[in-house]
Structure formats: structure tokens, C-alpha cells
């Protein structure tokens, strides 16, 4: 280390120092809001709004969490979200990988045509109403399939995974394996998948985050409250904060809504983002590797 420092020129050293300072600042900028939410979730809402909460909780209270943990809809939402995220990720990753592998192979006939078809969907989408009608006519309205199936296999992901396969699975490997009598399927399961853990991890993360944070599809397609994912439940609680014209008739229940909202807002953010915060470090080590290789143009 000393050796290294000595060899550096004065300019390099300054560069490093400034770099570290800047990065630390950026890190604080990113971390502080998270920390604030944590602290605020234990504080009296009035203290938060009067700006008295800064580094430590003020008016320490568990009320918010008590309310959250006693609200059944939040737990139903939690269970639903876990179900949708698991199922959707399984389907999504499977479809992506199954689509990407053949496209990565040189011996697939009509490869460019298939690729075209896929690419077109990146530029043009059906729009909200046609998509809604399609889902309706497929009888997927108000079922979880409307959330997990239509979005499975995004073209962008397919391209990333395909590129990863192309660059990290040499053709020679398939030649060697096939000479030894390996079938296509066997090759895929025994060679390709084990060699692609990093990109699989990336895909899993993409999908899980997507499903965990998604609420719009649920908002559009689901009617039954018992099927709502967590984010939609939370959103319903949180967006009530807006003052709208409906209030003209009923100021009192507006204030009641708001009181509840204020009480549980921060706790709810903690509760909902915790799973991802926990998941992320485990997948992060694959992340750079997977995405970097996958994104190189092939």
C-alpha cells in the first residue's frame, strides 16, 4: 500500500482524494433518505412535518408499525406479492432464457426474421386499451395470470441474455459435446445453464424487482381486493394524501384518512422495501459480471 502511494504523483493523489470525497458525498445522498425513512417510521408524524426529525427519532412510537401489522390487507398483499414475484420470475426467466438460447445459436433457421418480430415490439406497443381488451378476451381479467404472463420475456432481456450466451458459450464447446453424443437439450441443461449463473441471477433480480414494485398492471386488471399485490395496497393508502375535490363534501373523512396515512407512511415504505434490500446484496456479486458481458454488442 505504501509502495503504491509513493509511486503516485501528487496529481494522482489529489485526484484520488477528491474522488473519495465526491463518492462519499454521493453515498450519503443516497443513504440519507433511506435512513430518514427508517428514523421517521419510529417518529410522531407531527414532529416529522415540523422538521424536528433529522438524525434520531423524535416522539418515539411504534404506532405506525402496530397499525401496519394489524392490517390484514397489507399481509394479504404481501403474500400476493411474493406469489406473483416468484411465479412471474420463474415464468419470465424461463421464457427469456428459452428464447435467448436458440437465438444465440448460429444454426437456427430464420433467426433474423424472429429477431425482427421481437424487435418490432420494442418500438410499437398495442397501447392500453387494445392490451386491456386482449387480456379480457383471454379471460385473464381479475386473475393473477394477467400480471405474470403478458410481461414475461421482455425483448430487452432476451437480447442481453442472447449476447451473454454468444460471448461466453463458444461454438466449439457445442461441437465437442455433440461429437461425444450430447443432445441439444442435454447441452442446454448441463453446459449452458451452469455456465450462465451470473446472467440468470441478473434476470432473476430484474424480474423480482419488476414484479415487486409493479402496481399498474394490478390496478388495471384486478378487481378483487384479495388479489392485490402489496404495492397496490400501499399505494392506495399513501396516495390518499392528495387533497381533491371529493373533499368538498367530506372534509372529515379526509382528515381521518390523512391521519392514518401519516402514521403509517414511513413504516410501510420500510416494510415493503425490506425484502429487496435483503435480496440485493446476495445477487449483487453476479450483477456487474452478468450485465457487462451481456451488454457487449455481439
Amino acid at each position, binding site marked *: 500500500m505504501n509502495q503504491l502511494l509513493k509511486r503516485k504523483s501528487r496529481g494522482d493523489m489529489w485526484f484520488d482524494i477528491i474522488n473519495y470525497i465526491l463518492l462519499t458525498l454521493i453515498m450519503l445522498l443516497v443513504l440519507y433518505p433511506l435512513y430518514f425513512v427508517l428514523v421517521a417510521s419510529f417518529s410522531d408524524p407531527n414532529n416529522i*412535518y415540523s422538521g424536528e426529525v433529522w438524525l434520531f427519532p423524535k416522539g418515539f412510537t411504534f404506532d405506525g408499525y402496530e397499525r401496519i401489522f394489524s392490517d390484514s390487507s397489507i399481509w394479504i398483499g404481501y403474500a400476493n406479492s411474493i406469489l406473483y414475484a416468484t411465479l412471474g420470475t420463474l415464468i419470465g426467466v424461463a421464457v427469456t432464457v428459452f428464447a435467448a438460447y436458440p437465438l444465440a445459436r448460429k444454426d437456427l433457421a430464420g433467426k433474423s426474421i424472429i429477431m425482427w418480430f421481437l424487435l418490432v415490439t420494442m418500438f*410499437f406497443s398495442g397501447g392500453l*386499451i387494445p392490451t386491456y381488451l386482449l387480456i379480457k378476451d383471454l379471460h385473464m381479467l381479475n386473475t393473477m395470470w394477467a400480471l405474470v404472463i403478458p410481461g414475461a420475456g421482455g425483448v430487452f432481456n432476451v437480447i442481453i441474455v442472447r449476447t451473454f450466451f454468444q460471448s461466453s458459450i463458444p461454438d466449439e464447446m457445442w461441437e465437442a459435446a455433440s461429437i461425444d453424443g450430447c443432445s441439444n437439450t442435454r447441452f442446454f441443461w448441463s453446459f449452458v445453464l451452469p455456465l450462465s449463473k451470473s446472467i440468470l441471477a441478473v434476470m432473476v433480480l430484474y424480474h423480482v424487482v419488476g414484479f415487486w414494485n409493479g402496481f399498474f398492471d394490478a390496478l388495471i386488471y384486478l378487481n378483487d*381486493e384479495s388479489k392485490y399485490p402489496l404495492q397496490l395496497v400501499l*399505494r392506495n393508502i399513501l396516495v390518499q394524501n392528495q*387533497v381533491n375535490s371529493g373533499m368538498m*363534501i367530506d372534509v372529515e373523512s379526509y382528515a381521518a384518512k390523512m391521519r392514518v396515512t401519516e402514521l403509517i407512511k414511513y413504516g410501510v415504505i420500510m416494510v415493503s422495501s425490506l425484502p429487496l434490500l435483503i435480496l440485493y446484496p446476495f445477487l449483487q456479486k453476479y450483477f456487474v459480471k452478468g450485465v457487462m458481458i451481456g451488454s457487449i454488442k455481439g
Partner: protein
Amino acid sequence: MKSLFKGAGIVMLAGAFAVSGCSGNGNGANNQSGNQKADFNQTGLPIVKDAVTLRMVSPKAALAPEFSEMEIFKRLEKDTNVKINWENIPDTDYAEKKNLLLASGDLPDAFYAAGFTDYELINYGKDGTIIPLEDLIDQYAPNLKALLDRRPDIKSSITAPDGHIYGLPSFEENNLGTNPFFHVINKSWLDKLGLKVPQTLDEYTEALLAFKTQDPNGNGKQDEIPLSFMHMQWCMDIAGLFGAFGLPDNLEHRVVRDGKVIFTATQPEYKEALNYFHEKWYKTGLIDPESFTQDAAQYLAKGKTTDETLGSFVWWEIEEVVGTERAKDYVLLSPLKGPNGDQTIGRANGGGPGRGSFVITKENSNPEITMRWVDQQFEPYMAAQIHWGPLDIVYKKDENGKLVNLPLPEGTSAGEFRQKVAPGSGAPGVITFDDFGKVVDMEPRAQQRAKDLEQYYNPYMEKENYPNIFFEPEELDKINKIEPELIKYVNTQRGRFIVDGGTDAEWDSYLKTLDKMGLKELMEIYQTGLDRYNANLKK
């Protein structure tokens, strides 16, 4: 690249065919109820012998249970034998989902607590998406018909300009919103400083100044906020104070005097008020600068700081801002007498019945059953229960048969409880002014508010307001085109004039900009609408 787009075109075309084909098949497939008229009873209950199911879409508050689990609807189902297949949408997302359903033609039998705007009523009525209801009302809705016969004003206000009734009314005629701006001052501070409750604007200004400089909360810090409000927000704005200059303001800047519509924000009184607020209040630091930016949560928190810091504010109810403990420190202020001796307070515009609270769509194959079902809710006792909550849960009947409030379950507020047991104020049903006191008691807090209005504000209140007028579609188009931008501009300028001053220098260019934005045309539309409305009333 060129060839890619060619290919894309073909794909799109194919897709378009596929989609249109699908939707063609899909329409008409959702008549689960079928035609069961044979069972239908013209009068009496149940409405049908064998249960019929209707599909209804309705918004609900996020904390409320699904309507199918609400006691009030269970009772209705038992009485009528009409089962409702509820699709509840969180009220915050309702508008979006409603538009999607209407645009995609995925229609339920009816929208309940529908919140249809005038524009939607007319346009969807014209293209047949929702059906005219007046004949159905005549034949199948005795309760509603009786109400409309008794109250022609309600009938005229729900009738569209083309003569049809597309949406049913929703109305709690309690007149509590006539003056939403309850102006509050800290009485205990006044006492401490040896001041009396202000009667004039100048006394009020003195009091605010004393709040700021003389440390009435006694903590040695200058942390008092003499006056806080929320700029141009319902029930939290200082629009009421403009009345001290002779012309009260409201959120639309539109008042009526002797049948003439006046746009307040171009009048000399308005300018004088702005000058006063800037010179006497803002410049001297009496107005909380956050008044122009804060949201309701921040605002409410200001009343609940550890040391009492709020001197004066505007809100619907004192307790909500400062909490029940401190509420006794504060008192309401009657309209203040202005520098020229004016003392008046505005009357909020609109306030008539909501007219889009229930619509029946063309997909409904049982409109008679639907109308009879919803008519149950126009019976005054039922209307009250639909709006506030059912018997034995929220109300009990007293010896005169009037609905009186039961005590609330421990630890819940009235507003929160109400959401859980009833669809609430957007639902169909009319509780007229006469019904209060005879059929149903007002909630305790509403009674208090009625008393306060009577005592502090009604004597000074403007006589007229701009009623809730059903405009022609072309008029609505024009209003929608001009008004939002214009009001936004006026409000921004109002904030600037109060904060930065400069009315004298900028007034002319301000007026010119408003002219360019179509103020004159807008006011003409409003005047025409009002004239038509008044003519109709005399008929």
C-alpha cells in the same frame, strides 16, 4: 432499417385485425344476468322472485371493506333479492379505471357512486353508452319520483341540456359548506397580551404583529407563526378575508351579485386587498411564507408543535389543526370590518346535488330491476344509512323514529368509521334539508358546524352564489379550454402579488394577459348559463 419498418407495418396491420376481431367477439358476452322479467315485481319487495345478479363498478375508500362485505348492502340484497357483483376500485384510481372501462367497452350493468362529470354524462349519454333514465324513474322509482316532484330544483339540476336524465343525484343538503373558510385566532394569546378579539382588519393586523413580536407562548424564542394558511385550497385559504374590502373572493374567483357574474380577480377591491396583505402582512413577516407551498400534512403539524406556535389560521375545524387539547385556546373570527367599513363573507359556489352518482349502461339487460334496486336508496331513511352507515351500527331509531347516532366504537374517529360501514357521500341518495332533524340527526360535529355558521358567518354572508349549472357540451368545451390555465395564472399572480407586491406596476399587463387568455368569453358563458338557470327556475 427501411425494411425493418416495412415489416413492422405488416405486423401492426395484422395485430390491428386480430385486436378488432377479438373485441368484436368479446362485446355482449358479459350479460351474466340474462333476461328474467317474468320474475319481476313492479312494486313491493323483493324486487325479483329468483335472485338476479348485476355487475356494478364503484370506487371505495382504501380503508373500507369491499361493498359485498358491508352490512348495509347485505341487507339490501336480502330485501330485494338482487345480488350485486361488486367491482370495487380504490377511489384514488377510480377515474383512470372508469375511463378504461368506458373506452374499451367493457361495461358493467351500472356505475355506482359513479362520479360522472357533466361532460361524461352528456357525451356517453349522446353516444348511447349510458341510457336515459327519466322513463325508468317514472315507472320504477317511486321514491325518487316523489322527491323530484317535491323538489323541482333538484330535478332541473340533474336534467341535461338535452332534456334527458343520465345520472341520479347524490346530495346531503346540510349547507355546511357555504363558507368553508373558518378563520381562527389564538384567544389565549390575545388574553395574555391584553388584546380583545379583533373586530376590524386593522385590529387583526395589530394582533398578528403582537403575536410575532411579544412572544405570547413565553418560550423566549421568536417561533410564533402569526398567520398560516394554504394558498388557494378548499377550506384553508384566506379568500374569506378579501370580503373586508367589499368583494369577497372564493376559489373560482367568481361571485354573483344581483344575478350578475363578477370575476373578482380583476376588480379594484381585489387589488386593494392584495396591496394590504403584501404591505401590512407579508412584508412585516406576519404571513407564514410556507403558506404558498405547504401541503395539508405540514399545515396540520404546525398546530401540534411542542410549544404552541400558531397564532391564526384558516381551516374547516379547529380541532383538526391544533388537536382537542389546545382547541379551547382558539376562537372563531367573524368577518372583519375592512378599512372602508365593509364586512362581508363569500358564499361557496355550486353546492347543489351531485348528478352523476348512478348511471346505467347499455349492456344492462335489466334496467327496470336496476332502477328499482337503486330507488330503495332514495327512501330518506335508507339514503341516510347509505351515506353515513346502517341502523344498529351507526344509528338507532329514537321514539319518534328519527335516526340518532350511536356512540362510536372506542379509538375510532367518525370519519374513519363512516368509510368502513357505508359507501359514503358519493353514493346515490338525497338527504334534503327537511330530512335533517326529522329523519336523521346530523353528526355531532356537523351540528356544531351548523351552529358556528349561524353564529359567526351567516349574518354577513353574500346572498347569491353561482349554482351548479349543467352546461351545454360546447360551453363545457370552451370552459375546459380556457378556465384551467386562466385560474392557474391568476392564482400564481395572486401569490406573487402578496409576496412581492408590485400590483400597481403590473396590474395593467396582468389584466391584458387575462384578456388574451379569454376571460371575457369565459365570463359570458357563465353569465349565459346563469341567466338560463334563473329563467328555468321561474318556469
